């Protein structure tokens, strides 16, 4: 078995969560890495949709931005930005929205706007909403991929950029949000899913070698562990080789800058 990092486990777990043939609205960064890994492994017919208006993009390398030329050149269709949001995302045509987060709370609400108690005078100014609020509202389901820490996993987010389950079960219905909300959160420590009754995220999957108290320690609320907690299988050799090959061709990677490809065996 190959050795692997916590980030690799997270990206592989995220890729596995995508089923072949799904339509997937992809955020840039780790969601895009995982979606492209899925496409080169078990889900060749995954339809990747980027908010730049590229529908069915088939990049041969991980793009740096949602507007890299390779996305337009390999897409089934390229539409304008008003069209991608109004005609494609808003009606609920998209199976899964794949998002990152700077901060996430126990109801799966996402903050990518400001850190600190005051919007007007933030301690950290983040990039903001982008397409995420409507992706989180309208996709049939949302998958979030984020590194876990007490700071990131807060009892309550400082700013609700994108709504998960709001104040708890029933919030989405009250707000008129048409999609199913965050059905899976994938971190470097495990997998979380919302409790169907309360909407609160609970630990449902653990990774090899990572103990439950460690995951709870890195959660800013009292993390409930599902009675059906299952161990997630480690990355296979094929998954790791595919992921490393994919990342080695990404802009700004070591290999792009002249370094040899990473060793793939221990």
């Amino acid at each position, binding site marked *: 078995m190959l050795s692997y990092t916590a980030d690799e486990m997270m990206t592989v777990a995220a890729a596995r969560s995508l089923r072949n043939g799904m339509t997937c609205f992809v955020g840039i960064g780790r969601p895009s890495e995982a979606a492209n890994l899925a496409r080169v492994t078990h889900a060749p017919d995954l339809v990747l949709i980027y908010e730049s208006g590229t529908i069915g993009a088939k990049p041969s390398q991980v793009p740096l931005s949602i507007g890299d030329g390779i996305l337009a050149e390999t897409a089934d269709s390229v539409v304008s930005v008003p069209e991608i949001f*109004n005609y494609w995302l808003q009606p609920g045509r998209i199976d899964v929205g794949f998002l990152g987060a700077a901060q996430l709370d126990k109801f799966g609400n996402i903050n990518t706007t400001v850190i600190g108690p005051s919007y007007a005078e933030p301690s950290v*100014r983040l990039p903001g*909403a982008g397409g995420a609020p409507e992706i989180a509202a309208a996709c049939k389901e949302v998958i979030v991929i984020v590194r876990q820490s007490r700071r990131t996993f807060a009892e309550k987010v400082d700013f609700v950029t994108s709504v998960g389950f709001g104040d708890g079960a029933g919030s989405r219905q009250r707000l008129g949000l048409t999609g199913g909300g965050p059905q899976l959160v994938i971190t470097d420590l495990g997998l979380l899913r919302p409790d169907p009754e309360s909407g609160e995220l609970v630990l449902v999957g653990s990774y090899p070698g990572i103990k439950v108290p460690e995951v709870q320690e890195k959660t800013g609320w009292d993390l409930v562990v599902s009675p059906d907690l299952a161990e997630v299988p480690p990355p296979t050799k094929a998954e790791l080789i595919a992921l490393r090959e994919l990342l080695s061709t990404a802009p700004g990677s070591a290999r792009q800058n002249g370094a040899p490809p990473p060793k793939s065996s221990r």
Partner: protein
Amino acid sequence: MAEIVTLAEAISATVHDGDMVAMEGFTHLIPHAAGHEVIRQQVRDLTLVRMTPDIIYDQLIGAGCARKLVFSWAGNPGVGSLHRFRDAVEHSWPRPLELEEHSHAGMANRFAAGAAGLPFAILRGYRGTSLAENTSGVSDIVCPFTGETLTAVRALRPDVAVIHAQRADRQGNVQYWGITGVQKEAVLAASRSVVTVEEIVESLEPRPGAIVLPSWTVSYVAAVPGGAHPSYALGYSARDNDFYLAWDEISRDRERFAAWLDEHVYEKAVAGRRSAAAC
């Protein structure tokens, strides 16, 4: 009819102190050279509008051109923060920056309403988010037919739209393709517009998927080959991803940023004027 002029003439004729200016481009076809000309002409108190303010808006903000930013995602795509933008928001340097913040869907619809001559647009959005509480121009609206509560967003009507395109013909008809973003809506929503192009050709060949802005919808066209760099023009250039990565370092430090601006924006103007004088 669009007039074909130099970039400096186009900017001085359209972009004035206090204007609302939308320099649009969704990663592709970003009008960087035009933004540099705005910095060189030292235009002040601008309300800058853009869905995805990235490096060129970081430069305009750091150079002190902007009073306010209307936007939906301010970052260096795939790289991280915009440091000049953050310095302005977190430390008011070089001056305070007022924010009006939306989602992409909201901004796209605001441009579309402006292009359509409507006062607002309707979408399903913002509900339950903190954005709605912190941003003006967002309101609930009840559908008169179904009773469903939807969201209204105020139309955007910029004074000026500035975009980059692949080409124009000698009559000033503009053609662009690839990722087309929200540029058509921005130009049609604005009172005045500037289009920089990779080249001016005798006549435009029809091209699948291309958008054509007829000459009479555009104020000024200027030929600026490479005018999108480090963004790109599909069919003419590739995105300079290395520069986006390098910008993270250049922009972190105020002095290093100022030196970069001197060398790559202000000095270029001096060199340009000298060569113009020599002609």
